[in-house]
């Protein structure tokens, strides 16, 4: 039966998430429904059962707004590090990047370094300031001394746009993947994901969301490592033996371990690197994770652990992809019509799945399929919570009600918002079933890097930033990112069908980010209003709090 399941797989899963942003990958192809994959469904059901039990437990502990948004700040640095790594590693990391190593060798390693390098930067420049200045959302920081109403509205728009595009990519990916691996209907898959996400977020808030993320991160790390160890053992754990075989078999030959075509264009390479690096520092669901720990000390530890897990996993993926070149690449069972070197069954992105089957049989294959589904579920929950917080904490409580709102009311609105986001995600997931959504991942990262990051960074570091400057930087960066992506190949050519793109690069960050900073600078220094003066004067206090954590929630020990 397993063989049949694997028989007609066809999906461009790269576009499931981040790797899609990087690659401007082919669309999520329309997959064919497969026979029911019972072992995978059972393993997934166990995962869902566990997480629902945790949600039930978490629900009893979610009473205050702080419990709901940040798990009461009671998550340890280690747990939070796992959850952060979980938020960052989507199904595309596992499937897309393995496939990229399989086809492109060293180029894929360069991508992974670019995905990784944001972590040290976010630690050195932002981690403690985020923790010391923020409470629930990153808008708390930008609105510390600026006009709350306007700045929060902007931050909420930025967050919701990122969340929305990222969610659609994940939902469409989930539907296709489930059809492929589990043999369920696309619509059922999308509804299951949407419903579970709403349950986790509304009943369990951040406590449940965090634990879903932790369990998923452990499963992903465990599954990836087991497959790699089993595969690598076939080469006596010798990199040289493995490398010699891969070079012999791969069409790139010697160039497999050298930079290839993927990053030949320097401007494209830099723009991509900047988008991935600073995008991390502008993703609302990652930034939110700095508030779930008790103090700046734990926040720093979180990043250390997260970077450790992510870095480890990327290197595991490198080995996995290389082993697949030999193990999957020489087994006719995994090629259409049994022709070696021909089309891989299910498309290039099924390489990790095939490798699991080759080294661990149907059980490991089922396990990996369940992990991939769990991964999507965990990532969408994190996104939904970030989106709900932007609506309830920033828009409802602070902008509309101007702070005159009880915690119970605010939580009620967050729950309604999560339900609404779940509903929208399901509707859009179904509406976009047959659409090419790869560009949406590029958009999410581009907007995070150009719309959210510059404002956040300027408000932390530059005393002369005024509300006017912040609005110019935020909206300018957001619009520039959207326009450039629309003019790029992934929309202009792939979606609209024009022959050549107007904007020739995959990521807008190199151009949109400096523009955002410039707008922020120009509109701030030319702002001579009385309010601007007050905002500049207020920087001194903010600076002390950012540096010492004095006045931060739960950060003062005496």
């Amino acid at each position: 039966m397993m063989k049949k399941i694997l028989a007609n797989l066809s999906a461009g899963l790269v576009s499931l998430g981040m790797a899609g942003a990087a690659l401007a990958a082919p669309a999520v192809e329309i997959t064919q429904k497969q026979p029911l994959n019972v072992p995978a469904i059972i393993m997934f059901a166990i995962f869902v059962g566990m997480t629902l039990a945790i949600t039930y437990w978490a629900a009893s502990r979610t009473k205050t707004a702080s419990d709901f948004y940040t798990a009461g700040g009671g998550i340890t640095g280690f747990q939070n590090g796992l959850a952060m790594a979980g938020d960052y590693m989507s199904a595309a990391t596992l499937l897309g990047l393995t496939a990229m190593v399989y086809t492109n060798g060293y180029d894929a390693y360069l991508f992974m370094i670019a995905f990784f390098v944001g972590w040290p930067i976010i630690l050195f420049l932002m981690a403690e300031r985020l923790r010391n200045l923020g409470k629930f959302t990153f808008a708390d920081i930008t609105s510390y001394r600026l006009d709350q109403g306007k700045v929060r509205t902007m931050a909420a728009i930025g967050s919701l746009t990122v969340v929305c595009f990222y969610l659609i990519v994940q939902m469409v990916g989930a539907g296709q993947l489930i059809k492929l691996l589990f043999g369920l209907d696309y619509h059922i898959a999308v509804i299951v994901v949407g419903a579970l996400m709403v349950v986790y977020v509304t009943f369990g808030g951040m406590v449940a969301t965090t634990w879903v993320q932790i369990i998923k991160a452990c499963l992903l790390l465990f599954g990836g490592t087991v497959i790699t160890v089993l595969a690598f053992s076939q080469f006596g754990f010798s990199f040289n033996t493995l490398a010699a075989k891969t070079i012999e078999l791969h069409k790139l030959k010697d160039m497999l371990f050298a930079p290839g075509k993927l990053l030949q264009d320097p401007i494209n390479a830099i723009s991509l690197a900047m988008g991935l690096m600073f995008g991390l520092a502008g993703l609302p669901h990652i930034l939110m994770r700095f508030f779930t720990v008790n103090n700046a000390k734990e926040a720093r530890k979180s990043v250390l652990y997260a970077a450790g897990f992510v870095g480890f996993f990327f290197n595991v993926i490198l080995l996995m992809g290389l082993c697949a070149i030999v193990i999957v690449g020489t087994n006719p069972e995994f090629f259409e019509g049994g022709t070696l070197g021909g089309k891989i069954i299910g498309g290039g992105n099924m390489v990790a799945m095939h490798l699991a089957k080759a080294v661990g049989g149907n059980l490991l294959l089922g396990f990996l399929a369940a992990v991939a589904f769990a991964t999507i579920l965990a990532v969408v929950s994190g996104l939904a919570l970030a989106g709900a917080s932007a609506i309830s904490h920033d828009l409802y409580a602070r902008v509309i009600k101007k702070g005159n709102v009880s915690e119970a009311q605010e939580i009620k609105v967050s729950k309604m918002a999560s339900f609404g986001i779940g509903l929208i995600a399901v509707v859009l997931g179904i509406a976009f079933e047959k659409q090419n959504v790869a560009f949406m991942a590029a958009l999410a990262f581009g907007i995070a890097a150009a719309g959210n990051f510059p404002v956040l960074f300027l408000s932390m570091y530059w005393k002369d930033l005024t509300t006017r400057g912040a609005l110019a930087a935020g909206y300018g960066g957001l619009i520039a990112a959207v326009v450039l992506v629309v003019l790029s190949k992934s929309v202009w050519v792939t979606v609209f069908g024009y022959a050549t793109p107007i904007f020739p690069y995959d990521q807008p960050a190199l151009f949109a980010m400096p523009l955002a900073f410039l707008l922020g600078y120009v509109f701030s220094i030319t702002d001579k209003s009385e309010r601007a003066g007050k905002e500049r004067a207020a920087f001194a206090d903010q600076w002390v709090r950012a540096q010492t954590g004095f006045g931060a929630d739960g950060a003062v020990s005496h």
Partner: protein
Amino acid sequence: MSSEIYARIQKNPKFKELVSKRERLAWTLTGIVLVLFFGLFMTVAFNPSVLAIRLGDSYVTTGLLIGLAQFVLFWLLTAVYVRRANSEFDALTEQLLHESVKAKK
């Protein structure tokens, strides 16, 4: 009221010490990471053949080795920062807050 405390903290020489030490460390480490990372990407873009050189008679290329070294080094730098921040800087902050906040009470 808290503004008064903030002003007092800022006047304390320890605040200056804390800020300058931490900023220097953070920006130095950021500089190292950015230079190495964009250095690698520039090499990829302008002189990729340098990264294709094999080390001795092994199959490991300079590119692979540099890539792995970046993963390890960047992670070690995060460890260096966390270590200094969580011991030295936090202790300094503690003293600073003790002097500036408690002194008045």
